């Protein structure tokens, strides 16, 4: 699968979430409504984590742009 900025993976997750079904239990089962609520909370946490990670990557890229680190061949590790 191509990594098109992660979009394809996210689309796959969204599709999976649209199609997922839960097995029912007559006794001792859990509330499906509660499952979706927790999933929403988990998704929000992941979104926050991804956002933080994106900021970290942006800072690192900015840092490499400014410091101009060279690789083993003597070329710049990062080309503008």
């Amino acid at each position, binding site marked *: 699968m191509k990594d098109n900025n992660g*979009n394809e993976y*996210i689309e796959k997750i*969204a599709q999976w979430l*649209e199609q997922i079904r839960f097995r029912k239990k007559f006794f001792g089962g859990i509330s499906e409504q509660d499952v979706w609520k927790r999933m*929403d909370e988990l*998704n929000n946490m992941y*979104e926050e984590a991804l956002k933080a990670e994106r900021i970290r990557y942006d800072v690192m890229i900015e840092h490499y742009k400014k410091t101009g680190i060279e690789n083993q061949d003597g070329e710049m590790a990062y080309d503008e």
Partner: protein
Amino acid sequence: MMSKTSDISQVIRKRRNKLAIKEGYINLLTKIILMMILGYFIFSQVFLLSRVEGNEMFPAAKDGDLIIGFRLQGYYEKNDVITYRVSGERKVGRYMGQEGDIVTMDDSGTIRINGTVQSGEIMYPTYAKEGIKYPFQIPQGYVFILGDYRTQTIDSRDFGPISKDNVEAKVITLLRRRGL
């Protein structure tokens, strides 16, 4: 990137809303079924809802009136309006006497129970009919029931005393539907 992750939130929200609607319908259906079961239990074991057929209780009850009876009454008093069954047919009548009581009728249209004149608010004379000889003692386990429209009704004077087992309920409410 973040707009894509928001798609996931939208999918979750959509699934939650869909589930909430589904659960709402299931809850509504469950409540309707429970109400029906409860209604059936109440009106088959505790109360009785029936339509008056004929004018045998005129003027107290007229043809087409709705009556609500209480099935758990157990003990009835003279002049109570009750429902009972004769040959599988439900009838409405007035409770006149219980087991051991002596019923007497004379040519003047007066009915006596244990020697006491039973006039009440009945405006029709009570004449004896063929089949029962008066004075008549009500046998054990039976009751004597008359309709208010004494000159027209078919009641205990015709088919004799009624078994207590065939008495269904005491009428507690009457809903008039015609001739208001």
